[in-house]
């Protein structure tokens, strides 16, 4: 038995098995559950580390299972999947810590953490999927495992949100399935590979491939919250904060965006996609979504809803970077996949702390928050500035490259979009920062649950501080080896054949 | 076309089958429905015997064996149906099937 064949399976199982065990734990077994959670998360990070080291040393990690004659379930580690797998496993570790602190004392924790773990397994599966059907399988598994998290509270509102979520994602999944089968009948079992695999087919079945592309992007666009398929995302905000963090930064939205990246670069190939003329419409939709999300965010008073619309906008940067045909914009888009993740998760962590400790849910209630909770607010500020694109934080790097790429490919309109969006980002983040740091608080906090003057449990506070540090590091150390940017540069070079 | 003797019986079998089918659908009383099934069955058996009769000089034994099997099955079916109809009568008080009786206890 060769370990190379099993490493990827172990990576999946590290969270899947712990999830299954957690289902059967008694509600009171708090300590054991936390131990298992952290054990699973750490193990996954370590295994992903081993995988990256192996990929560097030119090991080929691949696991196959024959689903049907001529149709395999394929797990494969390449540079692109390593990028997403690292992102999700590291962020899962911190989110787990956060969730343990956040949900302390609430009912149904075994159910929650069970699905939480399975959800991450599904995300890792999405990352490691070596062909479209494998991707589809884990993508749907992700839908199923996140539904119980969205409706976790069991209130009328969260059930409604869950229903909306399912209607959107299952319909999207159906389109994705249709497209996958169609592609399969045209081209046989196509596997993901850098540079794409459909160049040959594209000459014979041009119009079919365009239609398939449209179906694929529509199916993926639901999770990536492309306009007009974003409707579920703001509603899903009723879920507990760790779930929001998971949905926005680690799993669901990211899986959609990652799918778009996979389809453009590793399935069609960027040259084929450009030749088919499908990138321009995608760029258009992405650009519109960027502006639309920002404008909507501007008018939300509920902090989490504002962040949700911000996600709608920010994730489309990834799609935009992908769709602008150019080396540099590709770098920007892919880097933003990582950068947006760490920034947005920081914001949600902080929003969760505000709600959990002080009962602050609205932007209008945030005056004076900086003095009350300096550490959390500092983390929030770093992430918000990063989102706006202020140097030297992570968001600046990715926006910069997308902009460079847009200029390079002559798409000056995209530069205008970026500028407008950054202005809008500033418009909805800066007032928050201003109120929090410079306004004096008059009224008492809506519901102060803090013990003493602290900022809540350390398990709540440590995760945003870590991720905020990552936001800074990703910006400042962008040129260091193993930074997201360098990694993406390596991927992009292969993709463009340099 | 000359009317072979066997054909008369075969057509009579078809006729019985049709009459039974009509009664099975159109009549409501359970006893009539059960009788209708018997008439239908008899039609099929008559048809089988009629086609066995085409063979010279001895009638084909295989359809006869089939009819024998069919008759036994049909007797069993009638017995079961009558017992069930009786249960319907004791539980509902009527010998008909109510139109919408899906949602009982």
């Amino acid at each position, binding site marked *: 038995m060769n370990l190379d064949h099993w490493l990827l399976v172990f990576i999946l199982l590290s969270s899947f098995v712990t999830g299954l065990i957690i289902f059967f734990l008694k509600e009171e077994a708090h300590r054991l559950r936390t131990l298992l959670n952290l054990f699973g998360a750490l193990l996954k990070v370590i295994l992903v580390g081993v995988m990256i080291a192996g990929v560097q040393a030119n090991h080929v990690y691949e696991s196959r299972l024959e689903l049907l004659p001529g149709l395999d379930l394929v797990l494969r580690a390449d540079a692109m999947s390593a990028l997403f797998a690292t992102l999700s496993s590291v962020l899962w570790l911190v989110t787990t810590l956060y969730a343990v602190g956040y949900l302390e004392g609430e009912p149904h924790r075994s159910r929650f953490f069970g699905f939480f773990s399975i959800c991450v397994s599904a995300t890792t599966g999405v990352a490691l999927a070596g062909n479209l059907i494998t991707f589809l399988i884990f993508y749907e598994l992700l839908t199923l495992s996140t539904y119980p998290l969205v409706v976790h509270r069991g209130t009328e509102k969260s059930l409604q949100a869950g229903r909306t979520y399912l209607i959107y994602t299952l319909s999207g999944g159906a389109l994705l399935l249709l497209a996958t089968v169609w592609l399969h009948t045209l081209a046989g079992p196509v596997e993901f590979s850098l540079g794409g695999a459909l160049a040959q087919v594209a000459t014979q079945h041009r119009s079919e491939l365009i239609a398939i592309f449209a179906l694929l992007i529509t199916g993926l666009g639901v999770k990536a919250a492309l306009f007009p398929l974003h409707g579920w995302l703001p509603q899903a905000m009723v879920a507990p904060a760790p779930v929001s963090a998971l949905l926005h930064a680690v799993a669901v939205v990211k899986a959609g965006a990652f799918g778009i990246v996979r389809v453009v670069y590793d399935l069609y190939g960027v040259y084929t996609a450009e030749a088919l003329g499908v990138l321009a419409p995608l760029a258009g939709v992405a650009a519109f979504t960027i502006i639309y999300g920002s404008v909507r965010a501007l008018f939300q008073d509920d902090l989490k809803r504002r962040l949700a619309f911000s996600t709608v906008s920010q994730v489309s940067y990834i799609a935009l970077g992908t769709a602008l045909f150019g080396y540099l914009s590709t770098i920007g888009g892919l880097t933003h996949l990582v950068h947006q993740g760490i920034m947005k998760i920081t914001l949600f962590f902080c929003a969760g702390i505000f709600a959990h400790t002080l009962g602050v849910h609205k932007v209008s209630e945030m005056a004076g928050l900086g003095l009350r909770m300096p550490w959390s607010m500092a983390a929030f500020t770093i992430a918000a500035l990063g989102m706006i694109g202020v140097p030297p934080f992570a968001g600046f790097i990715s926006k910069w490259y997308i902009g460079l790429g847009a200029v390079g490919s002559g798409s000056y309109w995209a530069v205008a979009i970026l500028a407008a969006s950054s202005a809008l980002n500033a418009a909805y983040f800066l007032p928050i920062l201003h109120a929090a740091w410079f306004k004096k608080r008059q009224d008492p906090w809506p519901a102060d649950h803090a013990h003493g003057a602290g900022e809540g449990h350390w398990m709540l506070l440590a995760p945003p501080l870590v991720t905020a540090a990552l936001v800074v590091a990703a910006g400042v150390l962008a040129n260091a080896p193993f930074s997201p940017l360098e990694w993406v540069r390596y991927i992009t070079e292969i993709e463009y054949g340099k | 076309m000359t009317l072979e003797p066997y054909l008369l019986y075969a057509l009579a079998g078809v006729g019985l089958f049709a009459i039974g089918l009509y009664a099975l659908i159109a009549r409501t009383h359970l006893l009539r429905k059960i009788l209708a099934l018997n008439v239908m069955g008899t039609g099929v058996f008559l048809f089988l015997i009629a086609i066995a009769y085409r063979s010279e000089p001895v009638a084909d034994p295989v359809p006869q064996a089939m009819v024998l099997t069919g008759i036994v099955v049909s007797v069993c079916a009638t017995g079961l149906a009558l017992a069930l109809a009786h249960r319907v009568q004791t539980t509902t008080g009527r010998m008909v099937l109510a139109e919408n009786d899906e949602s*009982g206890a």
Partner: protein
Amino acid sequence: MTLWDTAPWLLWSIVLPLSAGILTFLFRRAAPWIGIATTLGSVVSVAGLAAQVVHSGPLRYSVGGWGVPLGIDLRADGLSVLMLVMSAVIGVAVSVYAARYFSDADATDERAVQAHQRAYFWPLWMFLLAGLNGLFLAADIFHLYVTLELLGFAAVSLAALAGKRAAVVAAMRYLLVSLSGSLFFLFGVAILYAAYATVDLTALAGKVQPGPLAWSALALMASGLLIKGAVFPLHFWLPPAHANAPTPVSALLSALVVKASFYILLRLWFELFGAVVTPATATFLGLLGAGAILWGSAQALHQPRLKLLVAYSTVAQLGYLMLVFPLAQNAGSALTAWSACVYFVLAHACAKTAMFLAAGNIAHAAGHDRIADLDGITQALPLSVAAFALAGISLIGLPPSGGFIAKWMLLQAAIGSGKWGWATLILVGSLLAAAYVMRVLWHAFTQVEVARPLHRVPRTMEWSALALSLLAVLLGLMAARPVELLRSGAPVSMHAPGQT
């Protein structure tokens, strides 16, 4: 050659349950053990048979040594083997469940009722299994009629076993439908014998020519089977009969019994009447299937009671099976469509059994099965709700379940032959299925404080439901071997694109 290789395994699938029928009738106290042992025995015998078929291809067995045309032949090919595996595996799970179900002291029914049900469930179920296995192995259309009747009598008696008003009325309707369906079938057999002087499927296949005789035989047999198989719009009898029976019986009826009629239809259509059927008739059957999917799902969305919802879901799911007829019209996609529908049968059998057993557990615990009043069921019955959810995943066709693989192949056949209408229908049906499954699961997440369940549900009952639902999901990951096996003796063209 060892004894294992040469033993006539296919006979034991029939002789064992027949003998068990006698024994369980004579020895009531030992009946549950005899029943479980018999189903385990049929698992062993079908394993032996599968090994033989995999090793040396389709088998024929001449009972009495006469052979065609005078005697009766049995035959086992890939399709028969898979159907036997299905009945054996479902049989084990349901038997284990039933052994506990009919002897649970906490049950809602009075003890006397339960003792009565226990005494008669086992012999009836054993004869049902014998009829089913005999049917799957028969290569003789008159013998198919006899097995159909054996199956039908057992099924009707089981459906009436609950003894309540609704159950008795439903069983009466079921009996009338079943008997008339059999008579239609028998008339078709008679006409075929009259015309071609044989009742062997294979011998007839070489002789049947298009003409009034073949057409009328096809019409009679197909209508008989469509009635018995509850294909829309002849499904009216199914939901009340399945929903009002005791839980293990509901599972058996929905998972296995309706499949028997479909199995025969499949055999007749592709083997016997291959030269007679026309694209128009195939499309007609497909349209019936479409009606079943849409109507059955719409009804499932409106049922107030859980077991009725599950029963209407059976009506809808049977509709998918009808799609094989139009989809197999195109020679290129015939094998895919054929594999798809057979795999669909397997996946549905596991999922539907699990779903009925889980629904039975829920009803057992709550003392009712009104969907609207099921709030907070996960707190009381996490395992059963999990079983229901996993089974639901397979019914919807979400990956990686068996239902997903089946729908994948259906879609592949539809798209491969450019039939977009059917492809759309398959996807719409999936979304409708998601809607009615979620109607139930919805209540699992509501956070109301419910009183402790009235009745404790024994673990065996929860686990047998969960085991089958897991199987329904895992079927998606082990489709390659069964699909390969299906080619053994498949009556459709072997050249399908994407299936190299």
